[in-house]
């Protein structure tokens, strides 16, 4: 078992980085494969770096330490009628804000207004030399300097350890309605995603549930406006409006990856809707399940023991399971190595690839 440090302040975090030649930041460990360490590597937990530092509802912004649980952020925002529209996943399991950024994970709500990359405004982080640096801004709009905050989304702790994050938030729509449209096959889902993406309804989420038997659409907005929109959609495709508790549970189960719990392996794949039928075919061959989100732009794939994720035929990021972190990764361009050297010259954080 590698040791895990628990700095209590940002200064201690920087000290911990300087004190060890090989470190990996870990949050709550809800994406276990991302927190796995090779021998000799010291884990630095953000557990004690947990605090909502500033929240300005009138500015649509908040700043929190990286180890702050999403659930805590969400509760503070909900109390003021606001939210992070991209439904950050694994909140119920204890996922932290910093872990969500480093893993680059967004939930179903990313369909309408974008994902974690579209709401991050600023970061304070520790680079490979142990320097505490703040880049980006604390206001909803800022174009000064290179956009390093965005770059940290999906960076998996390879370029720095996140200490504090500033996000943009939106007012929470007063009501939501979820539609379940049963399906004949993956092609039908692709057709619905295409039609919904262009339609006047402005749906909030468009997912394909893990059994592949129904598309789930969520409408969000003023309560009075939603039934008419729902009726129009149901006039186009057969289906039903889910009762509120059922809808809440359905989305909560998806953002918690509950449907994947009986499988040892969980991975993330990005795709375009047209690639959906091929991918689902491969998942079936491997005996797995998939939750397709964001209108067919991302899929979370669970596989049984013994199934090789390489059989999916495309790059996969392993979130859980005994498999390489990257399956079929794209080649690392020279610029990636140069940027890695710029931020982490002595290679304290894990290598790329």
């Amino acid at each position, binding site marked *: 078992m590698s040791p895990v440090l628990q700095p209590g302040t940002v200064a201690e975090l920087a000290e911990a980085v300087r004190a060890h030649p090989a470190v990996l930041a870990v949050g709550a460990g809800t994406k276990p494969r991302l927190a796995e360490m090779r021998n000799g590597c010291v884990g630095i937990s953000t557990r004690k770096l947990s605090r909502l530092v500033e929240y300005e509802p009138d500015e649509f912004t908040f700043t929190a330490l990286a180890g702050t649980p999403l659930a805590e952020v969400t509760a503070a925002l909900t109390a003021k009628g606001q939210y992070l529209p991209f439904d950050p996943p694994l909140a119920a399991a204890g996922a932290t804000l910093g872990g969500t950024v480093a893993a680059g994970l967004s939930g179903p709500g990313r369909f309408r207004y974008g994902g974690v990359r579209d709401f991050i405004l600023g970061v304070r982080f520790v680079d490979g030399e142990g320097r505490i640096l703040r880049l980006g801004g604390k206001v909803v709009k800022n174009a000064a300097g290179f956009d390093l905050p965005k770059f940290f989304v999906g960076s998996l702790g390879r370029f720095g350890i996140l200490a504090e994050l500033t996000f943009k938030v939106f007012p929470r729509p007063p009501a939501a309605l979820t539609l379940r449209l049963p399906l004949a096959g993956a092609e039908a889902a692709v057709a619905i995603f*295409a039609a919904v993406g262009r339609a006047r309804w402005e749906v909030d989420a468009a997912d394909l549930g893990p059994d592949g038997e129904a598309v789930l659409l969520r409408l969000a907005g003023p309560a009075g406006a939603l039934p008419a929109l729902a009726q129009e959609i149901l006039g186009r495709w057969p289906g039903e409006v889910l009762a509120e508790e059922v809808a809440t549970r359905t989305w909560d189960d998806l953002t918690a990856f509950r449907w994947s719990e009986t499988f040892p392996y969980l991975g993330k794949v990005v795709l375009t*809707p047209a690639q959906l039928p091929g991918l689902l075919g491969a998942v079936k061959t491997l005996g797995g399940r998939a939750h397709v989100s964001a209108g067919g732009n991302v899929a979370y794939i669970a596989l049984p023991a013994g199934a090789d994720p390489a059989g999916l035929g495309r790059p996969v990021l392993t979130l859980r399971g005994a498999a390489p972190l990257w399956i079929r990764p794209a080649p690392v361009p020279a610029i990636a190595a140069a940027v890695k050297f710029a931020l982490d010259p002595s290679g304290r954080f894990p290598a790329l690839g």
Partner: protein
Amino acid sequence: MRDDALSRLAGILPPDRLLRQPAQLAAYESDALTAYQASPIAIALPETTEEVVALVRACREARLPFVARGSGTSLSGGSLPVAGGIVIALNRLNRILRLDPDERTAVVEPGVINLAVTAAAAPHGLYYAPDPSSQSICTIGGNVAFNSGGAHCLKYGMTSNHVLGIKAVLATGEVVEFGGASREQLGPDWCGLFTGNEGLFGIALEITLQLLPRPECYHTVLAGYRTQEEAGNAVSAIVASGLLPGAIEIMDALALEAAVAAVHADYPPGCEAVLIVELEGPREVVAADRGRLDAIIAASQPVEARPARDAAERLAIWKGRKSAFSAVGRLSPDFIVQDGVVPRRRLGEALRRIAEMTREAGLRCANVFHAGDGNLHPLILYNGRVPGELARAEALAGRILRMCVEMGGSITGEHGVGVEKREYLPDMFNPEEIDCLKRLHAAFDPLQIANPGKMFPGGSAPALATHGLHPLEKAGVISRE
């Protein structure tokens, strides 16, 4: 050295696409920050991405500085040439390579005009959301380099939020493909890092953009107020209500006067400020929200509130707003546009202090701004022929920027640092942070040949022209009408 470099370039482009005559070069000496000029040694007009790659690699071998250029509408000196270097003008790479209505994406070359993307998407019920006021002339390549904004950023974000993929030639000569056609990605967000690089990383060759469904319905209200403070209070009330308007804009008295003179815009009389608020979405949603918005505006006691009754009235409201920069330009021989951001709750205070500082400087300043996201656009009027006025205008601009940083905001919301604001970067970032940005810069451009001297303090100062029109205006290509 220079001749050697030029002969390399001559091996890539035919003579009619490698401009060398002083008269031809003159048209590229400035961008829309007309106070600055610099003379390039040649203008390259590539027509294919292969030619761009070859040009960049030749520049690298010859250590010849290059500045990528779209339409030259940068307001911060971003596309100002580097003396002794070349300009790579990308206007001829203006093809929309693919448009997929089902996946709602478009792949475009960098010289495609912003509005042309929406024009191509419109038959499919789609549009390209970022809408800088210059959208009928500026290019996607320029938008990407500056992470340009527009009137609808509060709800839809900036250019960066709509760029899914970028193929680029870096200043090292490496050709890379960041992101792709999917809205999601694996691994670090390279597209996000490249967007907003201000031309310092290399040249974008192909950009994949996300398209959105065109909102079915709008409710656009123009409300006039006796004081700026009242208009500011109305913004606060709207934001606090939980509504998410597509745009919240304010124009002050001087900007209104200019818009009236330039495009015969019609505003309620006796107003110190006009507020424009727009709701958009499905008709049922707009119908449900408009009552709330109208009530908030009524309660804010405007002199008059005018909801647009039809598409023509809506367009008229936006025409007045979007022509404001050029309209103000007609009030004065010269002007500088500032772009600082302040926390929204401090807008009123910021405007009061700008008014005071302007009075102290003995100048005039019009304010047209994105109130929804606290992004100010003070337009500082000056006459470059009056000795000392440019220096006073620049000093005032600097005081305004420092005020924005002190209030917890930013020196630039959407126009970029460029040449104009590079001395103010240290107001936002400490020396270690600037060092970090410089290391990143060096990773992309170790030889410092891509748009050198921009963004970072201490670059060599280009020649200051104290007066004059934009080179494209001189050439009759654009006008401030």
